[in-house]
């Protein structure tokens, strides 16, 4: 009897310690963000109080200010346009390719997959200069199209690696049955494979969406004040004379991050697999 109560106590202690650890994790990893959300809901006086205040009546004046600013609205819509276009383009280009990588074998297949992997690993800052010079030479500098092209291309390795694994795990029988009924490769791909692959496509789409939405460095170089995206605007805020307007900076940051959090939650199960380029199962 005393043994089982000892066991229960041990279990209670173990649970207690584990939850204490988990709670500490939440504080470390989420509190910084909550604090920023908090700043965005403070007045200027409340922000610059020393020591900082932990309880206050939230105000939305920073959001009201940001949402009526043409700077914010134009950069946010630039981000939306660049992200939407590049996600659609990279899916249209990348998905058929990944299906072929999964189902057919052709000469140079292995090398191509490895080149795509390397393309994802190389640091963008080392490719930026020649890309900038070449875009300038073809008259694309300072356009939204230039970052759309860059995001589309740099999403391709992600899409190909994620979707190749997904297609490879789909059963072949349905396609084979369709071939016997006389369907062409293209028809079977469109009518049979694509509908089955929808969950994988959603994951690939969101990963490429995050790549484009979160990018700073390509947009910092390839766009100007009228075509810049939200991260570029945020970096300008931080460095410029508005650097002391914490309310506007944090409100903008929160607005930029909300879509990221929503989309990450949708694909949370597949995130790590996707981000480690489909090499860890």
């Amino acid at each position: 009897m005393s043994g089982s109560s000892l066991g229960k106590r041990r279990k209670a202690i173990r649970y207690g310690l584990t939850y204490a650890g988990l709670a500490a994790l939440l504080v470390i990893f989420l509190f910084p963000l909550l604090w920023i959300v908090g700043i965005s809901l403070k007045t200027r006086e409340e922000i610059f109080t020393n020591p900082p205040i932990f309880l206050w009546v939230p105000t939305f004046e920073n959001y009201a200010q940001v949402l009526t600013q043409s700077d914010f609205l134009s950069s946010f819509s630039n981000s939306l346009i660049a992200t939407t276009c590049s996600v659609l383009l990279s899916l249209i280009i990348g998905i058929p390719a990944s299906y072929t990588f999964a189902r057919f074998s052709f000469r140079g297949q292995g090398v191509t997959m490895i080149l795509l992997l390397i393309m994802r690993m190389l640091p963008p800052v080392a490719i930026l200069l020649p890309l900038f010079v070449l875009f300038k030479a073809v008259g694309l500098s300072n356009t939204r199209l230039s970052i759309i092209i860059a995001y589309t291309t740099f999403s391709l390795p992600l899409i190909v690696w994620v979707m190749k694994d997904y297609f490879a795990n789909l059963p072949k029988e349905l396609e084979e049955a369709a071939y016997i009924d006389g369907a062409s490769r293209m028809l079977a791909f469109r009518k049979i494979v694509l509908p089955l692959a929808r969950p994988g496509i959603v994951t690939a789409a969101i990963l490429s969406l995050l790549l484009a939405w979160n990018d700073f460095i390509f947009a910092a170089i390839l766009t100007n004040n009228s075509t810049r995206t939200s991260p570029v605007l945020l970096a300008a805020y931080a460095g410029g004379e508005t650097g002391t307007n914490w309310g506007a900076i944090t409100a903008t940051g929160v607005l930029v991050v909300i879509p990221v959090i929503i989309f990450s939650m949708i694909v949370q199960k597949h995130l790590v697999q996707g981000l480690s380029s489909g090499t860890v199962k």
Partner: protein
Amino acid sequence: MVAHHMEPAGGFVAAVDDSNDVERRNAWIKFQDRIFVSLTIVPTMLASALVFGIPLVFSLLLSFQGWTIDSALFGGRFVGLSNYQDLFSDPLFRSSLMLTIAYTLATVTAELVLGLGVALLLNSRVPFVRVFRTALIIPMMITPIVAALTWKLLLDPSYGLVNALLGTKTVWLGDPDLALFAVGIVNVWQNTPFVAILLLAGLQSLPSEPVEAAAVDGANRWQTFRHVTLPLLMPYVVVAVLLRTIFEFRSFENIWVMTGGGPANSTKLLSVYTFEASFLSFDLTLAAAASWVMLLIVLIFCVLFILATKRKEIQ
């Protein structure tokens, strides 16, 4: 009679037709497959070659040339290795190379140690543990610029939360001895969850028999972890370390927003050095050489990564 005579011949002809048909059909299918493969692959290859391949080759050429932004695109003249000589004789470049190595080593080590701890914690069988796992994904996914701004405000000397909690007046980002540590915090904070979730996936895929056998043999928790779990987890650790090395090596956003490479160049990593050479001082050939030094270092880690993931344990 005639009909009877014709019959076998007719049958024979039909048979020949049949096998011709099959052959022709097979050839047709093969042809179709080929068209399909080309149609699906070519756009990806073309985009990669145009936006990735050509710029790479162009910057490789630049790195061996004397060239200015006003020259014709491929109008530079060959200068051999002199851009690379200039690069390595620049004390700022050498210091940025050393700083980058130190920074990458420190952040990856921190992410690995913390990530392993977090993974073990998340692997415990207590109710609602998945909620915590989901919450950890948030810092990992948020826009790097926002993460950098978050910590810039948290570390503000006068109104930042960190100094308020510590009761100090530390100028985190203005002190050459502290700045690199401070910008490193952002990346460790953002990427420890990635390492943790990767290692958690590893822990959950391990077979349970070896651990049970160790328990039967009377090993305590630490011994089991050290001699059974950790060796089995090693392939995942290797992948995590290589991936994080590749991605820490390119760290840019946190530094650009928080310190811009200062104070006194104490946070000027290779990425910042290359960026400044490219777009602030417009020393394009030097920048191309710096880019290629970065590319070659990352390529080495890519090869290691490919070798590591080819191993059976992970596939």
